[in-house]
């Protein structure tokens, strides 16, 4: 077989005329500018939108603050590197044609840009990363909260105070809170972006995380590990309160239990037992002790229903009890069947009285 020598310009099949090339490049630049403009516009538009309830870029505590700072540093470093690379790349493509053109230094250019510089920059980032990680190690925390992930809700327990709640964490402002995380079934992940990064929850391991809120407020959290059909509606809220208010909350909730003499209890609790709610739910100091579903001792005090699916109003709760599948298809709670108007009203009143 004969193989030919191919000099630089011998092949004309794909070589376009000068004007064609200029037109090509003009088109390319036009569209590229358009794309850049769109990207910047999109960035600007997304940057200045008001309230963020679940944003890693709106930190409300020291841990999230450390990570947010880390992000801005990473963005700056990687941004500069990207711009530099793009500049070189497009300069290489569009610079005037030369027979033996090569970047200054030849192989040294590749070694510097492709090995040496990245190594130095990445080493810096690595050390910063390790530094930030050690900064985020659990501080001596006063309060411990146990959180158990369930399909598709959160069990929250204060072992020191004997309080059991669901889908809501109440914490004091300005103090680190230690979390013990585990799961009742599959893997979940606990994540409140405004306070800290996420941590997975396993059925066979206990993992640890700590939170600290520096500002009073409500922070949204959500399950971040795919856990099944209603993974999307497995959210919760963290209520950060000044220490005094928190202490008052604890004192109040430690005492919570239904009043057996109250009228709502006598009407509602019967319905509760008759319709099998006690098969999954517990209410303190009653015969309902099951823990398959959320503990209902504090039901009336919760802000949301169904792991942050609906706002907890009597109306919503009524609809929810009739058929939770309407709002959260695939939820493990069955619809309440054969329940009369009166009964359901009694049940809702009873639930709302549990605070």
């Amino acid at each position, binding site marked *: *077989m004969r193989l030919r020598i*191919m000099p630089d310009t011998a092949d004309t099949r794909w070589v376009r005329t000068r004007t064609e*090339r200029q037109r090509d490049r003009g088109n390319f630049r036009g569209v590229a500018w358009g794309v850049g403009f769109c990207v910047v516009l999109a960035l600007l538009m997304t940057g200045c939108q*008001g309230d963020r*309830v679940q944003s890693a870029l709106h930190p409300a505590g020291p841990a999230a603050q450390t990570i947010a700072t880390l992000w801005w540093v990473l963005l700056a470093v990687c941004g500069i590197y990207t711009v530099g690379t793009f500049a070189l790349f497009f300069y290489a493509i569009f610079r005037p044609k030369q027979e033996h053109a090569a970047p200054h230094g030849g192989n040294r250019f590749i070694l510097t840009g492709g*090995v040496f510089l990245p*190594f130095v920059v990445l080493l810096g980032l690595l050390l910063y*990363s390790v530094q930030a990680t050690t900064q985020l190690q659990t501080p001596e925390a006063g309060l411990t909260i146990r959180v158990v992930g369930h399909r598709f809700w959160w069990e929250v327990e204060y072992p020191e105070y004997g309080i059991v709640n669901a889908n809501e964490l109440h914490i004091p402002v300005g103090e680190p809170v230690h979390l013990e995380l585990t799961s009742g079934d599959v893997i979940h992940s606990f994540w409140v972006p405004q306070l800290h990064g996420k941590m997975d929850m396993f059925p066979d391991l206990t993992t640890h995380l700590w939170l600290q809120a520096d500002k009073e407020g409500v922070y949204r959290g959500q399950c971040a590990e795919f856990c099944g059909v209603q*993974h999307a509606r497995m959210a919760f809220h963290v209520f950060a309160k000044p220490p005094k208010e928190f202490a008052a909350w604890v004192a109040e909730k430690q005492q919570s239990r239904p009043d057996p003499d109250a009228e709502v209890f006598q009407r509602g609790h019967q319905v509760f037992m008759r319709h099998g709610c006690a098969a999954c739910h517990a209410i303190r100091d009653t015969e309902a002790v099951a823990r398959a579903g959320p503990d209902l001792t504090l039901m009336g005090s919760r802000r949301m229903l169904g792991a942050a699916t609906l706002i907890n109003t009597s109306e919503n709760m009524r609809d929810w009890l009739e058929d939770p599948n309407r709002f959260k298809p695939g939820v493990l709670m069955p619809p309440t069947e054969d329940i009369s108007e009166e009964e359901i009203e009694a049940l809702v009143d009873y639930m709302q009285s549990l605070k």
Partner: protein
Amino acid sequence: MDHIEQRDPELHAALEKTWYSPTGFPAWFSEVNNRPLGVRFMVTSFTFFLIGGMLTLLMRIQLFMPDNTFLSPQTFNQLFTMHGSTMMYLFAVPFLEGLALYMLPQMLGSRDVAYPRLTALGYWCYLFGGLIFYTSFLVGEVPDAGWFAYTPLSGRDYSGLGLDFWALGLALVEIAGIVAGVEIVVTVLKFRCPGMSLGRMPPFVWSMLVVGVMSLFAFTTLLIATLLLELDRATGTQFFNPHRGGSSLLWQHLFWFFGHPEVYIIFLPATGIVSAIVTTFSRRLLGYVFIVMGMIVMGFVSFGLWVHHMYTTGLPELAMHFFAAASLMVAIASAVQIFAWIATLWGRQPPLNAPILFTIGFVVIFVLGGMTGVMVAVVPFDWQVHDTYFIVAHLHYVLIGGVVFPIMAGLYYWLPKITGRMLNPKLGHLSFWLTFIGFNLTFFIMHVMGLFGMPRRVYTYAPELGLEIHNQLATVGTFMLSAGFLVFVWDFFRSLRHGELAGRDPWGGDTLEWTTESPPPTYGFYGAPIVGSRHPLWYGGSVPGGEALAELAVAEVRGGPIPFRATLATDTVTGKPLSIQYLPGPSYVPLYVATGFVLGLVAILMKLYLVAVAGAVVAVGGLIYWLYPRQEVLEMLRSSEVGRRAGLPIITTGTRSTAWWGAVCLLIILSTCLGAMLYAYFYIRLYSDQWPQGSIPAPELAVPSVAFALLVLTSGSFWWANRSFRLGKPLAIQAGLTMTLVLGAIFLVTKSFLISQIGFSHQENAYASLFYLFSCYVWLQVLVGLVLLAVVQIRVWQEHQDREGFMKLHLQVTGLYWYFTVVAGAIVYATLYLSPYVL
């Protein structure tokens, strides 16, 4: 159009006859040639790509508004599971395998790949695996635990039949992946044309060599992981069951030990494609050494990154930082390639045609994806963005930018070779701008969505997150992106009829595929080309005296065409011609074996275990028929004059033979199997307070020790038989082999007895499951070894005189397997019987 290769019509006709591609029914199913099968791989996988893409349109419509009810949550979960699985398992890897199977022999100057029938087996396994995946839609049991299928969610307690479709379909696709790995490695190492030394291989070939080796490790690990998962689901073992001593986290380790290299398995060939295009249109390639270095570094380091998918699982911080360091540093391997391309393009003014445009798109998008990759390698930052849309953005930047764009570039570049027709340049531009803008519109904004708190894999999101406008833009972008791909598809079909004829070399490329006609003849090359540089079509390739023909071609010119399929095998390093390799022709056996696999797996799916056994029998019978040496072929090779005319042997042994290299690949696969199982054993051991778990006593030592000692002894007797073979002592050979067989059989019987005497069920706890797993593994390993030994014994009986030829190779290959069996047996003994007392 200058004809590079002067065609001798008579020789052409003769070669066409030898290398015919069967057509019509049912002969079509017996195809083994690499080019038609490569095309089948590409067409099938591109079809899956379009289907997988359509699934995203539905998902993006659902996410257009918060609290949308277009899709049910169940359906949404099924769709994203199928989207991920389709793109990762059914599109990216098989497409690039197909491209490699088609292009490698073309670029290497050989006539086919190393094991033609294995190519066919790979294709049928892949096709059936993909069909099993999608049959789940017909049954209404679609897998819905994500393409990663984390346990325990994917276990029998939480997932239905859909997951069985997933695991079994995947098993077949993995077999295809492993098979392609073997195929690619041996082809690249042995079938390079004369003169193509390691330093002259085109970058695409280098990338495929690295990928081939990686596939052996990565897919085998996944195969073991899915096997354990399916055992858990079908037979009730407890490997991943946290309530019975198993580990919920073990799956993630095994899965990502495959999963991360997988990303590089598809990214590396993409860089190879880009290097080819950049070289052609710059008329040079600078930094070849750095590009190869980058590929080798990626090949290794990609196996050391798996933990960066698990930063949020509460591992010891120190352990995470090793992986953080490796994850950051692997960026060097990409950066060095990008700088080599920059240097190559410097001042060369490439034409802005479709291949180059897609290459530019690739660099832009991939650099951005690489940067976010660096960001998520930083441990605390990953704690925030892990499993959010930031990662969705990152992975699509890396996979669409890093793989799909180069694939598109490669299609515009190589389709003229494959179909013989040019694609339309204007439509190419349109397709590029639609995909490029659509892509960035869809995914750039997802970085922001992730930072603002949108988790992955949610079928809806709360209005209070304030992410409506972002999601709407992303949805619009997706449709634009899809339109871009549709333009390409339309252009493709249009070009088949109306495209300009491409000729041999439409781009003025530098590599050997451009020397043949477009499309290439069934036999590929008329004679093996001779290569004297990295760019053989540009310079250094011409040989003084005009007609440069390698030995194979010399033989054909002098003695007429070789009457059987053959290609030239060369030295792995220097590319010096070593032998003429016989290659088999069309065969139904691969289809038969694949059908056996499918029958077995589908039967498991339907819980018809007897049918499953029948399927296994069909497959194993097919394999034995396939591998059993054909006397008539041996006779034909022995009596052939071709070797003498060419001055090269036809029957080879040791490193000269493809069979030996195949056996080495098999050993890599088997040791990876063993390694993955050992990892599972010691991982579960590490997280158990008590070992053996539960009330199970530590195993008795006496009988197993004797049995395993016998197994170790067989290595001595086998060595003796081998030595006697070299010295030509027929009786001693027989005695040595018989001794090996008998000792092995005693081991097997004892082991069977031991297994039947185990005092607990495999469902008892994870320890029990592991005990059964290892016992059955060693039993099976020895059983296969004994079958091989028996075949050798029979054949030695027949032809012990054949001391330099085929018999020697047969003994070598069997020896590799048997020595490995002995070593594996010793390791299993130490693990199963000794370690409970020591650790």
